[in-house]
C-alpha cells in the first residue's frame, strides 16, 4: 500500500530461519501476526471462538448493565472476579507459551509486542471509562447485547464506530 509508513511495518522473526516482514495497521492492539494468509474458511475458526466467548458473556451476565453498576459501586465481587481470573489464566498461558516455545497450528512462532506508553493510555482510557459506565458495555459486550435481543444497542454500536472514526480524523491534533 502506498500510504504505509515505516511505523506500520514490523519485521518479525516468525520462523527460526528468516525474518518476515508483516504490515500492520498503525498502533493496532490486536494484529494478525500469522505469515500464512487466512482464507475465508480458515477465518471461520475465529467466529467459533467468538461464539463461545459470546455465550460466556451472556451466561456470566457480563453484558448486564446492572453488573457494571455493581462493579463501579463496589457492591459485588463478580466483575472483579471475572477480570482477575481472566488475567491470571491469560498470564499463565502466555508464560507457558513462551517457556515451552509452543507453536501455532501453522507451526509458526507466537509473536508478542511491547506496548509503548502514550498519553492516550490515560486520556482515552478515562473517556472510555465514562462511556463504559453509561452503556454498561465495552466493545465486546456491545455485540453480545445486540445478539441477546437488545436491538437498540445497535445505535450504541454505530455511535462507537463513529467515535472510532472521529478519533482517526482528529488523531494528529490530540495529545499522545
Amino acid at each position, binding site marked *: *500500500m502506498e500510504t*504505509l509508513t515505516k511505523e506500520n511495518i514490523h519485521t518479525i522473526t516468525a520462523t527460526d530461519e528468516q525474518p518476515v516482514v508483516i504490515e*500492520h*495497521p498503525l498502533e493496532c*492492539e*490486536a494484529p494478525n501476526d500469522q505469515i500464512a494468509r*487466512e482464507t475465508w474458511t480458515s*477465518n471461520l475458526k*475465529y*467466529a467459533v*471462538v467468538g461464539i463461545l*466467548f*459470546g*455465550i*460466556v*458473556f*451472556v451466561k*456470566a451476565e457480563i*453484558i*448486564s*448493565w446492572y453488573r457494571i453498576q455493581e462493579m463501579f459501586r463496589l*457492591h*459485588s465481587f463478580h466483575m472483579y472476579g*471475572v*477480570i482477575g481470573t*481472566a*488475567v491470571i489464566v*491469560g*498470564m499463565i*498461558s502466555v508464560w507457558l507459551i513462551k517457556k515451552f516455545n509452543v507453536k501455532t497450528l501453522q507451526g*509458526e512462532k*507466537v509473536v*508478542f509486542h511491547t*506496548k509503548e506508553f*502514550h498519553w*492516550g*493510555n490515560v*486520556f482515552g*482510557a478515562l473517556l472510555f*471509562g*465514562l*462511556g*463504559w*459506565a453509561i*452503556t*454498561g458495555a*465495552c*466493545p465486546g459486550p456491545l455485540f453480545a447485547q*445486540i*445478539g*441477546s*435481543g437488545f*436491538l*437498540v444497542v445497535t*445505535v450504541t454500536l454505530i*455511535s*462507537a464506530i463513529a*467515535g*472510532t472514526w472521529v478519533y*482517526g480524523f482528529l488523531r494528529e491534533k490530540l495529545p499522545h
Partner: protein
Amino acid sequence: MLEAIRQPWPWYVAGALIGLTVPALLLLGNKHFGISSSLRHICAACFPAKIPFFQYDWRREVWNLFFVGGVLIGGFVATQFLSNPEPIRVAEKTVEELQQLNIQTDSQLMPASIFSIENLLTLKGLVFFVIGGFLVGFGTRYAGGCTSGHSIMGLSTLQWPSLVATCCFMAGGFLMVHLIFPWLMQLF
C-alpha cells in the same frame, strides 16, 4: 447438565474461559486478543475517507470481524437456548441506589426503562446510546485498546501501559457513576 448451564455462571468459570481466549487466538493463528480493533476495521473497510489511520489492508485483519460476528451469534444462542428462567439478581445496595436515581431494577439483563426503542429519540437515548457509544468508540481507540486488548491481553503480557490504561478505565467508570450520574439523571 443443561440445568447447570442454564444457571448464571460463576465468576471463576467465566474468568477462566475468557482468559483461555488469549492462548486460543494466539495458537489458532498468531492473533492478539483485542475487540475494539473491530470498530476500526469497520471504519477502514466502509469509510476510510483518505484518513491515514484507516489506510491499511483491513482484509488482512478480517479475522477480528469474524470474531465479533461470533460474539453476536453467541449472545443470540445463549439467550435463545441457554437462558436462565429466573430474573437477574442484583446486589441490594445497587438496587437501592439505582432506585434513588429513578432507575427500576427489572428482571432482564438491561433495565427496560433505559434500553428500549421508545427512548431512541429522547434525551435519555442521546445520552445512553449516542454519547455513551461515542465515548466507548473514541476512548478505546485513543487509549489503544479496551478491556480485552489492555486489561486482559495487555496485563497477561505484563505491559505497564496497559496497567495504566486499566486503572484509568476504572477511574472513568467511578467518576461517571459517583459524580456525574446523580447530576445526569436529574435531566430525565
